[in-house]
């Protein structure tokens, strides 16, 4: 199982994406992160932390080293898309997928939402996530952040921020491991 990203590379990639987000949005105003369960959630939390740190550093160095500016908080939520899946009732044999909690503890109205997932593949998860988000309100915009884009899209969906493009074949699977869930940071490709 070849490891295609190790812990170092993942952390540098997230640092780069955080800077790209700040650059493209010209700061943190109205920004909010929503991670897709399961592994989009820790990625969203890490991005929020990096963005807050960077913003804090920049604003305090601007005012002569005094941390007089209020602490920057980028609201972060988590989204479970199970109830919006397009394949949910197509195979009505066997147990239903487990539903986890959706927690978006802020209004998404007029926010610039960064939707975060680990792997972008067919695009169907993102389609479901867009439907789910729209049920929470009317954001100003939605941008898509993924750690890995492995190709093979079945829907017209494109990521705004990509950690790494990984050309894969359909017989392969991409496994993202994150410390918060799996005890280690690693992306690997598996032959199935």
């Amino acid at each position, binding site marked *: 199982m070849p490891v295609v990203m190790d812990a170092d590379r993942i952390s540098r990639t997230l640092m780069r994406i955080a800077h790209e987000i700040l650059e493209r949005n010209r700061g943190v105003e109205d920004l909010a992160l929503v991670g897709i369960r399961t592994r989009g959630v820790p990625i969203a939390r890490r991005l929020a932390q990096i963005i807050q740190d960077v913003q804090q550093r920049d604003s305090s160095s601007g005012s002569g080293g005094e941390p007089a500016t209020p602490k920057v908080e980028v609201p972060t939520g988590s989204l479970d898309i199970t*109830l919006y899946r397009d394949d*949910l009732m197509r195979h009505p044999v066997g147990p239903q997928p487990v*539903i986890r909690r*959706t927690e978006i503890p802020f209004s998404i109205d007029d926010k610039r939402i960064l939707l975060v997932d680990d792997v972008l593949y067919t695009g169907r998860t993102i389609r479901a996530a867009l439907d*789910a988000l729209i*049920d929470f309100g009317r954001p100003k915009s939605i941008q898509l952040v993924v750690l890995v884009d492995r190709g093979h899209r079945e829907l017209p969906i494109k990521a705004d921020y990509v950690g790494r493009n990984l050309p894969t074949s359909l017989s392969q699977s991409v496994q993202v491991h994150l410390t918060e869930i799996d005890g280690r940071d690693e992306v690997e490709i598996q032959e199935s």
Partner: protein
Amino acid sequence: MKKDLLSIDDLSSEEIYLILDTAEAMREIGQRPIKKVPTLRGKTVVNLFYEPSTRTRTSFEIAEKRLSADTLNIAVAASSVLKGETLADTAMNLEAMAPDVIVLRHASSGACYLLSRICKSRIINAGDGMHEHPTQALLDAFTIREHKKRIEGLKVVIVGDLLHSRVLRSNVLLLTRLGADVWICGPPTLLPAGIDRFGVHVSTSVGEAVVDADVIMMLRIQQERMQGAFFPSLREYFNTFGMTEARVARARPDVIIMHPGPINRGVEIASEVADGPYSVILEQVANGVSVRMSVLYLLAGGQKED
């Protein structure tokens, strides 16, 4: 999960916890500005109610609509049952129109089993006579777990008309399955024969039963099912078994008072208790929607028997 939910006996402990955990996730949908998800889009759910019901029918209907199912309600008063059609015939006619789920409330114990044999649709028992009311027991367990963070080891005292109560049977099955210490209390005339075989403590003294209780669950005196005199008068019943503040004071300080509704103030429960700070009666109603959404979602993907 099995095809139908007819009895708590159809569920393993793992399935009970899965229903409760899924209900936690479902509750969040009710707090959104748009209280609807597309999960059961295109599924047809028939609510077939042979007995009057406000809470249960409304609760099921809201749950179905929040999951985007197409729902229709058959109130027996306005249906061909009045023209003499039997339950089996009604079921076969409904089946011909291929609904995905039928929610049945019926005055005869076991009516849902008859329906289950006839219909391919999934059947949810919304109360059958004096037998069971599984979704009520599930929402009670959900409410208890929310307040006490556990069910195992709690002292749960169920007081009231034990004989006619389907809520009692479902709750006894569920709570003993999950390891609660269940006490039941009522007049000897309203004790179902052989109930002690279900692993519960039986008492005819409410003052004794409620000592150190974590949960007190009141059951309604079901006069509509009573043929004969089970106790001298409602006033005497209240004096002997009614839940008063003095009796609640013997339970643990953090006791919660539950009631499946509709409550009869001054018969099984004093108004001060029903409206007291420890009463979770209205939370039970709110939780009913989440739990029924959970059951509908999980059953819709259950194993289909052909």
